[in-house]
């Protein structure tokens, strides 16, 4: 069974390569559906396969860039990527990441930086989880009361409506996302999420996706596509910096990307058949699992933490794949029926 193992010349380890394909596939599915890189899932997976932690993070970053590129291409075809919004946010994100990194260095000089980082990470994850479920509960309540708002249907939290009233020039119309607001709003929000990303040393998709929905007012599907566009650019930048530091295993990146190419199609196409709130709720559950895994790890339960992450990945993959295959089968059936009736669907 030697053929199942591959030598990684830079990390100096022999790895079970189907495991890499599986990680790539799973994160492709989940990332394409939620619009995030998924570093919190890949890094422990690589570590379990035998990668030293120093290489796991850099390798993960390059893989995320390639995987997001594949997902972005698919989302762009659906019209889920608002490039104008993406470019404005990229600028804010990069400046924010630099500020966040400086903040970490300042805390390093004071000592106990890691503890503060973990505290902030868990706190913000809890906040996001609360926001997602509170929003859902509010939307359900409104729907029961018979309130239907706009063309998007019933929405719970609509803070973005208040932010859209900010009249600070330049006012920009985002055609794909379908709203007009001050350019300072996405720039400011991405700057803040960038600070968090730089401070925590993560890509930031976990924060940006909900920020795009709740603060900027993107429909969920467009938030997913636009965030992936951003993850792609920041991932390529991350791949460059980690490569300079020598913390990347290119061979593993290739192998993982092969699996991610298939997974990303499933995750991305599944968004077509999912309602916005379906994506938000699943995202909220993923955030809770991520938060619990961090807490478990800090209390010394590393194995339980890894097991929780792997279980979450497995369940999410099955759930998203089921949405995709059920939706696709229904669409094909519908097309066949229309063809037989002599009214082919375009």
């Amino acid at each position: 069974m030697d053929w199942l193992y591959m030598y990684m010349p830079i990390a100096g380890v022999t790895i079970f390569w189907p495991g890499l394909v599986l990680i790539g596939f799973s994160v492709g599915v989940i990332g394409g559906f939620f619009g995030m890189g998924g570093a919190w899932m890949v890094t422990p997976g690589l570590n379990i396969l035998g990668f030293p932690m120093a290489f796991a993070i850099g390798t993960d970053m390059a893989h995320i860039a390639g995987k997001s590129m594949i997902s972005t291409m698919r989302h762009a075809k659906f019209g889920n990527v608002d490039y104008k919004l993406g470019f404005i946010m990229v600028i804010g994100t990069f400046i924010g990441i630099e500020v966040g990194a400086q903040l970490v260095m300042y805390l390093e000089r004071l000592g106990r930086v890691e503890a503060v980082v973990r505290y902030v990470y868990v706190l913000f994850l809890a906040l996001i989880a609360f926001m997602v479920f509170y929003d859902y509960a509010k939307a359900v309540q409104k729907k029961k009361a018979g309130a239907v708002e706009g063309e998007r249907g019933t929405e719970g939290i609509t803070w973005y409506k208040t932010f859209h009233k900010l009249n600070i020039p330049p006012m920009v119309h985002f055609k794909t996302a379908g709203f007009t607001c001050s350019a300072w709003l996405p720039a400011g929000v991405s700057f803040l999420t960038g600070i968090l990303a730089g401070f925590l040393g993560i890509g930031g998709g976990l924060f940006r996706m909900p920020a795009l929905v709740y603060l900027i007012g993107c429909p969920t599907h467009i938030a997913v596509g636009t965030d992936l566009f951003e993850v792609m650019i920041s991932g390529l930048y991350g791949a460059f910096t980690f490569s300079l530091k020598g913390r990347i295993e290119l061979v593993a990146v290739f192998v993982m990307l092969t699996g991610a190419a298939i997974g990303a199609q499933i995750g991305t196409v599944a968004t077509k058949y999912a309602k916005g709130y379906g994506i938000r709720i699943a995202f909220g559950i993923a955030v809770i699992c991520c938060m619990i895994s961090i807490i478990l790890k800090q209390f010394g339960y590393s194995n339980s933490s890894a097991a929780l992450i792997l279980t979450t990945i497995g369940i999410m993959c099955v759930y998203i794949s089921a949405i995709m295959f059920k939706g696709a089968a229904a669409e094909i059936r519908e097309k066949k029926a229309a063809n037989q009736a002599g009214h082919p669907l375009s």
Partner: protein
Amino acid sequence: MRRLLKRVLCLIAGIGLCLPRLVWAGGEAATNLVVVADTRRVTGVLKYIADTYNTDPWLFAVWAVVITAVWGAILGFSMDFIMARSGLDLKSRKILEH
């Protein structure tokens, strides 16, 4: 639903109470590593990559970005070609939140 919301809030509050312990659970800083790629067991392109890693970090970083982007694009276009033959409409979708 309210009961569920209350439970979620309790869970989050509980986690908040546990946080001070997390603060003091900070680990030690990672030590600096000097890694040299083993070029004895690889040939061809892999040997070139490993050699570049050892000798020219800047060129290696540029290659890492270029190869990742190119490989991502190749896979993206290939999958696009395959998916286009699945019979699904991959160019439009309805946006419905609830």
